[in-house]
């Protein structure tokens, strides 16, 4: 059940929250787990079997790793086997889903596979004990809002919160606010940019102008950003309503100076996972500079593979990795001194890289790049002009809210008297936003959830 569906927003969430606040404290964890499984299995109950198998596997391996903690070789072999098994299972299932039109695709697999691996690595590295109660691990792996697009958490943070978390009116109110803002990002912005992207993609690549190629890529990047950001924020909001403090997954990446800064603000918890559990742990930290760079490139190739099982995703990861190395070795000082250059460099380069995400082949990507560089069918065509004039307002709004200019203004405003006075309007603004979101959700030409595409 997608978080942005009417079934969830109108029927499930209010009932889920109401019952959660009515039942005694002891039963809340079981209630959340049961709710997560129902939502996970919504529409295809058989789907629950895969994560169930996954859960028992991780729980058992975690206990074994703890019991034989002193036998490091055995533990290393056990961890390596588990990691290979899980990664292979995830890769095979996603690849089969990609080939067979996603008839059986246990959604959230990209999220709970990483969480499961992080848990096992944590036990192996003695960062935290193995879970004693299977329901704790189950909730860590399958807490429903997180499954769609993160954010990822490590088990230490989660288990600490599990015992201590308290729910109150302030948390519930803040959580609802975050959820509504995330829902707006998804159904108002992401869906509009998704629609715009889909319309622009109908332009034959042979007759594509520079304007249309750039609009397509900008629409896609805004769609991707607001889709992932919207789901992550909805998850954070729902988590807060249930007493969990989930981390932010995005931090206004547009207008960041340089690709390093851009990528550090993009899908933050995923990058952190790969850096902690792959680059620093598996590659063991770098002794020499070239090893560090090689590790960085390899990490980004894997991040690309995590996004999707296609050659283009791997190439995207490779490109980003190489660009980061280039930036750190050649451009870093220059970017530090020339902020605007850094911003433009990151914006333009990242737009070029997204072409690999949405095109079907390298040949097609090449045609897009050619058109973006001005070697396509002229500077502008009718459809490009039409879409630019029709969607100028929403494109500007999207670009603005994706930058930290928006955050800076809202934060500064909050410290002023006027801003504090305006806080009184917060409930009305959120109610209005919720009403507008419900209207947007009635459109039938909405984009499918991105995780189905990745």
């Amino acid at each position: 059940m997608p978080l942005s569906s009417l079934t969830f927003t109108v029927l499930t969430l209010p009932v889920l929250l109401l019952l959660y606040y009515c039942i005694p404290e002891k039963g809340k964890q079981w209630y959340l787990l049961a709710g997560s499984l129902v939502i996970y299995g919504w529409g295809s109950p058989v789907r629950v079997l895969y994560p169930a198998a996954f859960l028992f596997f991780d729980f058992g391996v975690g206990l074994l790793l703890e019991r034989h903690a002193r036998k490091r070789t055995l533990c290393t072999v056990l961890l390596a086997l588990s990691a290979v098994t899980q990664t292979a299972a995830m890769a095979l299932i996603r690849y089969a889903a990609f080939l067979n039109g996603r008839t059986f695709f246990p959604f959230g697999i990209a999220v709970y596979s990483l969480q499961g691996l992080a848990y096992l690595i944590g036990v192996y590295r003695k960062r935290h004990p193995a879970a004693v109660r299977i329901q704790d691990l189950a909730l860590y792996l399958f807490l429903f809002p997180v499954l769609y697009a993160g954010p990822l958490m490590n088990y230490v943070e989660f288990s600490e919160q599990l015992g201590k978390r308290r729910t109150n009116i302030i948390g519930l109110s803040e959580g609802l606010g975050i959820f509504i803002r995330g829902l707006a990002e998804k159904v108002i912005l992401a869906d509009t940019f998704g629609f715009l992207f889909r319309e622009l993609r109908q332009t034959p690549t042979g007759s594509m102008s520079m304007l249309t190629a750039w609009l397509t890529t900008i629409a896609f990047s805004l769609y991707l950003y607001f889709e992932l950001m919207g789901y992550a924020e909805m998850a954070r909001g729902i988590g807060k309503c249930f007493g969990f403090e989930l981390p932010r997954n995005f931090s206004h990446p547009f207008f960041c100076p340089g690709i390093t800064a851009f990528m550090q603000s993009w899908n933050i918890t995923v990058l952190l996972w790969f850096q902690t559990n792959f680059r620093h742990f598996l590659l063991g930290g770098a002794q020499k500079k070239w090893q560090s760079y090689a590790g960085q490139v390899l990490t980004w190739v894997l991040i690309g593979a995590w996004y999707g099982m296609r050659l283009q995703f791997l190439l995207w990861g490779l490109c980003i990795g190489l660009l980061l190395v280039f930036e750190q070795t050649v451009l870093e000082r220059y970017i530090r001194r020339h902020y605007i250059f850094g911003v433009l460099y990151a914006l333009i380069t990242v737009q070029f890289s997204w072409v690999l995400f949405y095109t079907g082949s390298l040949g097609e990507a090449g045609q897009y790049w050619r058109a973006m560089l001005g070697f396509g069918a002229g500077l502008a065509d009718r459809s490009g002009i039409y879409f630019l004039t029709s969607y100028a307002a929403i494109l500007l709004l999207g670009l603005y809210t994706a930058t930290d200019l928006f955050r800076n203004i809202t934060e500064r405003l909050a410290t002023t008297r006027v801003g504090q006075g305006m806080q009184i309007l917060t409930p009305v603004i959120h109610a209005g936003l919720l009403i507008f979101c419900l209207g947007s959700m009635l459109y039938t030409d909405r984009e499918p959830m991105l995780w189905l595409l990745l």
Partner: protein
Amino acid sequence: MKHFVHHAMLIVVGAVWIAVIAASMHDLSPYFPKPTAATLASGAWTQQLESTLREHMGFRDSLFRLKSRTDLFVGEKMVQGVYVTSDKLLEKQSEPAADAKVLAEPVNTFYGANALPTYLVLIPSAAEIYESDLPANAVSADQESLIRGVYDSAVSGIRCVDARGVLSSRKDSYIYYRTDTHCTGYAGYYLYQAAIQKMGFTPIPYNRFVITHLTTEFRGDLYRRTLCDTVRPDVLDRYGNEAGVHITGVQAVYQDGTTEDRGTQLSAPAALTSEDPYRYYLGTPCMKLTVTTDADNGKRLLLYKDDFADCIVPFLVQHYSEVCIVDLTQTGEAFAEAADPQDYTQVLFLSSIRRWQELWE
């Protein structure tokens, strides 16, 4: 202050939720899908529930209008694939995924297998005829070249009717509904005239028909998709010819095999008060509709059609003792199995190019 804001937030957001849920409970109850073990396991029930909510949720129309009007206000010119202009709603047409040869294949195969006098009429959409009325720089598929391509790919024995030419020459008249995708009865007459001439008959003169305005408040499928009420409602006309042939029987066969005797009534007056008044012309859609008349010329027509043909059928039946109407949208590729073509003297394929694309791509 902070506490007040949090309490107010819960009260205001909660009030929105309660209002929507309460109204939905009332509006949804007649449509609520009944879950069964099979639909629950297959996921069909959850999809039905979502689409039912989308259609019948409390305050549905108000919420939808809020969204669509805001979109139009900030510069968008299209709502759910429909261009909104000052005086009409025009559906955006997609570029064909298949080439013209593929689209001509079904009719060529049929002609090859049956060798009957076969005619093909492909009707363009309003956006093709009123391209100049689209918002500035808006694009819609070039249906003219597509239709020409299909006609050129049809084997030589198949005779094609230039519906686009007929409609273009009358573009200043009321040939398409303003709020619906279909052609008006007026356009239906001229399409009938062009087709029946090609089929060897003399068309009945226009002035022989008595025109009755069935409703002047017809809001069609494009209105239902956009809920845009800035465009005037349409007029739905009935073309009657009391001096012409009379219908002696109408038999409907539905997709599930059930049959219905509709007496001597081709049209369905009850549809005028339903959600889709365009169904007035042929009633509830069915897989096959057999119409017999008191014409004693022994001519029998097999008509393969989509819903664009509905307003043309009342004119066509004037020339035949029997017309068998097969709905291509219900039969799909198995259309030739719905009736034995050898029982008929002529075969007419009559469809909108948009539906034709959807069917054979």
